[in-house]
């Protein structure tokens, strides 16, 4: 019944050859290991990263690791429509997510291709294909939603900069070789205009890490302490004091495709839940609330898929997405949270027993409580939903900004 709705989505993508879809689907069928979710449940952090590196190598051998990179840098040179097909098929196959290398494959190359020097591109992109892990050092303890107030200082010295400060929520920093770092180069300029973007070698003297255990119990994030860390001039990206603009301008295409993949993954997560319910006689679906909530969840996910399809159409037509991405982010994250809430509720007490964390499965691991707890990652990260509502109000509706507090 929903196949019609599927084909209704993104006209532009429908024109892409079925050949690619068939090819990707066949490759994934032969390479996504059966039962990987079960085997990875309860895996240690090291077992998890080993599995991530293995899947990274598999995807590379299949030619699907960097379809979005230009061909001259070792990428697939896929059109956006072709990337959409790949993301959809990866979601359909329930493949592991490349979380360890996410910043390496998406944020860093997008940033360098947009604002980096030829030397930076030549040095870092090939290394990423060999497995170099990047993390992102943006947020700070005192600079979350108000990221532009960040305090990490970069002082110009002979041949480079000395950077001191503290970063928070640097994902995968424990395994990272390099860090994309925002630091203040001009403390006298207005907040947005005194920030620069640096490439930081994590082995530099003065870098210290402390693992940050999150609510789920996993430790994917770190605190990063920087004490007079020297960064050479050739590791500054773009112009000095232009870091804020660069960091803001490189996320557009990736956001649209990520939303699409996560939405498709959520759809298949929903499907697994329904199959589970249909197979498990012990689950009560007789009460009106459960039946109402299940129908509501299906309907809202279908509406979200259609909306994502339109976002993708926009992406294919214009190469980027606008403020609508904020609307989609809020809808996705809150739909995810409601879905996880429903799954916990339907499962009842058994959901309260941990079966071991399943890392790398995205936000619909099938472990209801894990997904429920992790759903706050999506309502908080990437600009909290409250910030998104400001963005929608101000940039989409044109409402006046709130007056700034005087400091």
């Amino acid at each position, binding site marked *: 019944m929903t196949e019609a709705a599927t084909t209704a989505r993104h006209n532009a993508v429908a024109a892409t050859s079925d050949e690619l879809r068939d090819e990707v689907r066949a490759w994934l069928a032969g390479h996504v290991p059966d039962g990987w979710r079960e085997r990875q449940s309860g895996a240690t952090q090291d077992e998890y990263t080993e599995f991530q590196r293995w899947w990274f190598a598999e995807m590379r051998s299949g030619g699907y690791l960097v379809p979005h990179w230009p061909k001259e840098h070792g990428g697939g040179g896929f059109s956006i429509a072709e990337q959409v097909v790949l993301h959809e098929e990866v979601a359909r196959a329930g493949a592991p997510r490349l979380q360890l290398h996410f910043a390496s494959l998406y944020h860093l190359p997008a940033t360098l291709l947009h604002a980096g020097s030829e030397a930076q591109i030549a040095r870092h992109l090939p290394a990423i294909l060999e497995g170099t892990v990047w993390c992102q050092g943006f947020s700070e303890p005192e600079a979350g939603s108000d990221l532009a107030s960040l305090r990490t200082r970069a002082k110009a010295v002979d041949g480079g900069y000395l950077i001191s400060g503290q970063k928070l929520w640097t994902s995968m920093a424990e395994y990272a070789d390099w860090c994309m770092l925002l630091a203040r180069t001009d403390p006298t300029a207005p907040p947005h205009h005194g920030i620069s973007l640096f490439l930081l070698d994590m082995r530099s003297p003065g870098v210290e890490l402390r693992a940050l255990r999150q609510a789920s119990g996993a430790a994917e994030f770190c605190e990063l302490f920087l004490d007079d860390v020297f960064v050479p001039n050739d590791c500054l990206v773009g112009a000095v004091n232009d870091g804020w603009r660069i960091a803001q301008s490189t996320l557009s295409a990736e956001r649209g495709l990520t939303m699409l993949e996560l939405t498709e993954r959520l759809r298949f997560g929903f499907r697994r839940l*329904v199959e589970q319910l249909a197979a498990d006689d012990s689950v009560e*679906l007789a009460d009106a609330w459960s039946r109402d909530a*299940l*129908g509501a969840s299906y309907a809202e996910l279908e*509406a979200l898929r259609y909306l994502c399809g339109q976002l993708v159409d926009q992406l294919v037509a214009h190469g980027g997405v606008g403020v609508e991405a904020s609307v989609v982010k809020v809808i996705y994250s809150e739909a995810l949270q409601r879905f996880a809430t429903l799954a916990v509720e339907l499962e009842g007490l058994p959901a309260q027993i941990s079966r071991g964390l399943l890392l790398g499965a995205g936000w619909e691991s099938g472990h209801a409580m894990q997904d429920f707890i992790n759903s706050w990652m999506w309502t908080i990260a990437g600009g909290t939903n409250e910030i998104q509502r*400001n963005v929608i109000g101000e940039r989409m509706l044109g409402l006046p900004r709130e007056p700034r507090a005087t400091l």
Partner: protein
Amino acid sequence: MSTSELDEIRDVARDLLKHRSSPDQRHALLDAGARHDLSLWQEIVALGWAGIAVPERHGGVGLMASRLGAVMGELGRALAMTPFTSSVGCAVPTILASDNLDAIESLIPRLAAGELIATVAFDTTDLTVTTSDGQLLVSGTARFVLDADIADVLIVGSADAPFVAVVPLSERATVTPHGGWDPTRSLCSVRLDRVPVVPDGLLADGVSVQALRRTGLAFGALSSMADAVGTAERALELAVEHAKERRQFNRPIGSFQAVKHRLADMVIALSSSRSAVNRGFVALEQGGSAVEAAAVAKSVAGDACAAICGDAVQVHGGMGFTWEHAAHLHLKRAKLDQAMFGRPRSHRQILTQILLDDGCAYA
């Protein structure tokens, strides 16, 4: 159908309604106690829109459900007082879905030309049929029938009657307006006393009856949600304009997060609602299940659009509670849309049943 073509139809409709269904014209009609804007309906008919979802071979302009949805959205937006939803949005596709070629050939061209107005009553009580001189005579009572006071024919059915049929709203049919809360539309009760079925008007009997009735209800539900999204969209726009202009504490009230976030929430809810509804019309074009399409639309948009219109009243403050301001009209319209053709929670139950019966069929 391409996005630009749809935009064009939407623009034409919006422009027409701006001039022909303006707040002043609406006030004049409402003050006179009218529940129909018949001259607007004549203009819509003259534009060919009554045949907007009718195949060309039956006198229409081609079966394009998205186009139908776009026009219904504009009518809801403009609070237009026409029988479009009942006749074009619901009755016409129901007759087409019957696959009863005789009925289609005798009724659809006249409906598409606007010579006839039709409405539906799928929950008629005490619905019976008797035969007299080879004629089928229908009796029964229906309540909450849209536009029955100006419709020429009525499609009747019920959850247990073994037929769906078209009857004329002739002198043997007693139509009494209910005086509904939404003053832009007309809800009526209809009592049928041995009304003869129109020639070729037996749309379904036997096993196909309930399928056709459910499909007809689905067309009504999807149409009501197109109307609701349009009306909520306009209510939101009014609220945003007000939040930019109205100043308190020396600031536009839209600069306060309490107001700004409420408006952002309305955008978010409207965005989901619009997607659910547009998805439904696209699904119809591609031969998808009308029941599923309508249930998704009603589940998402039914409660959300009513809530958006309620929030719009709230954002307007005291002004939003006055009779003069349009906010209450949008709210009343959205509440009727929410309640018609199955309330949202009934549609969510339908979806759950589909999922549990058929959960693995979608891949």
